[in-house]
């Protein structure tokens, strides 16, 4: 039995805090991106149970945007703003998530639409409801069972396809149920040829389908994309972070629970 691991499995393993007899695990969360819709109830739950936020500096609340004109939305924003002050949370402007707040190899939890795309730079994303949000705030972990992982090998001729076209082909080949129930790890020369924006778009789209999101291992393009961003590791930290990111590449012969190939094998060998 080899110990060759895929990227998803490497990140999962690097964040395991505890696994119980039934196989359920506590997975450490590096960054928690709070959302107005789910966090109000979560903070209320903390207050009722007299619990504190475990790592306020790793729990990010968006700055309230300009008034929306929608009174419910405005109240939710105000509530999150007040909670962020009370619990001394980290804050961010919406475009800052792509400025290095989220990095390869991180475990991130939050709302699907906010974070799902960051699978494209190699972050493992978990999607949380109010109860999971409260759990992450209080413990900096989520209680999860390791999902089965599907490896999607993307041949070179796929690189030019749009995210929508790739999704359509995936649905046709793998079927929605399989896409929904697996964490999706995308590799191969096709994805390697895609730029980061295209990877982010693809992962955003796939995370709308898969319960566990989609992931692309970081490579030189990812590192180039992150370099110099305002929240990326800097100075001495940068080299160490790069070394960790490079280690996240899937091992040769890594075992996966399912595997499919997108695109022609002829194009791949060409």
């Amino acid at each position: 039995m080899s110990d060759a691991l895929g990227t998803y499995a490497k990140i999962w393993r690097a964040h395991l805090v505890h696994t119980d007899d039934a196989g359920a695990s506590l997975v450490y969360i590096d960054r928690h991106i709070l959302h107005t819709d789910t966090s109000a109830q979560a903070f209320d739950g903390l207050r009722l149970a007299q619990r504190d936020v475990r790592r306020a500096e790793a729990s990010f609340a968006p700055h309230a945007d300009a008034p929306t004109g929608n009174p419910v939305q405005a109240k939710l924003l105000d509530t999150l703003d007040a909670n962020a002050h009370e619990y001394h949370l980290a804050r961010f402007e919406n475009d800052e998530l792509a400025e290095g707040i989220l990095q390869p190899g991180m475990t991130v939890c939050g709302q699907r639409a906010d974070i799902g795309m960051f699978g494209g730079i190699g972050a493992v994303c978990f999607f949380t409801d109010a109860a999971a949000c409260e759990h992450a705030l209080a413990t900096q972990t989520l209680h999860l069972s390791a999902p089965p992982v599907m490896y999607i090998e993307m041949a070179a001729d796929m690189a030019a396809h749009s995210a929508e076209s790739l999704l359509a082909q995936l649905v046709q080949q793998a079927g929605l149920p399989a896409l929904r129930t697996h964490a999706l790890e995308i590799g191969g020369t096709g994805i390697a040829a895609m730029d980061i924006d295209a990877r982010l778009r693809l992962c955003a789209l796939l995370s709308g389908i898969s319960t566990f999101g989609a992931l692309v291992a970081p490579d030189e393009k990812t590192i180039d994309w992150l370099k110099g961003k305002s929240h990326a590791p800097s100075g001495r930290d940068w080299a160490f972070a790069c070394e960790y990111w490079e280690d996240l590449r899937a091992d040769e012969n890594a075992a996966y629970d399912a595997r499919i190939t997108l695109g022609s094998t002829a194009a791949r060998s060409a």
Partner: protein
Amino acid sequence: MEKFTAIKGIAAPLPDSRISAETLLPPDALLTLRRAGLGKFLFASKRYGADGREDAAFILNQPAWRKSAILVTGAHFAHDAAGEHLYWALIDFGIRVIISAAFDSAFRAGCFRHGILPLALPEDTTANLMQAAADKKLFTIDLEKQVLSVEGAAPIAFDVPAFERHCLLSGLDSIGLTLEHEDAIADFEKQQRKEMFWLYA
């Protein structure tokens, strides 16, 4: 989460089967930001008339049952429950035990998660308990001994899985359970801070 000790009181009979989540909690309640206070929405469509006044005929508005912590219900109570609001409302209202002949697994799991004991008992037993509840008999539920006693009847033994029982008796919700591993979390952070220091910069 409040520890589950012996629960004693008059039980409220709700004989309808398949009472839906929407009957239990109006959609408006899902928009509230606070979970304390959700109890006032519980059974809103039955408890209040169109004018917002209480309907005196509804069982939970009658003096004997206003403070019932125990419900005896028809099968598949809240079979379509989704999300957490319903449990928060039940707890806020003061419900701690729900007795029925059949529960749907998601609702049953949700009850345990929020400190409510879902007690599945055989159909004929449930029918007797429904009558006893209507007759305002005193119910006592001892989770430690796993016995339900009803005034004037033989005690009824029940069986709750060991893990769920432990959580209820210790008042552990899912966060409380995780915090039993707080040392492991702290050790993880110490190690990660050493190896991936840039995450803590």
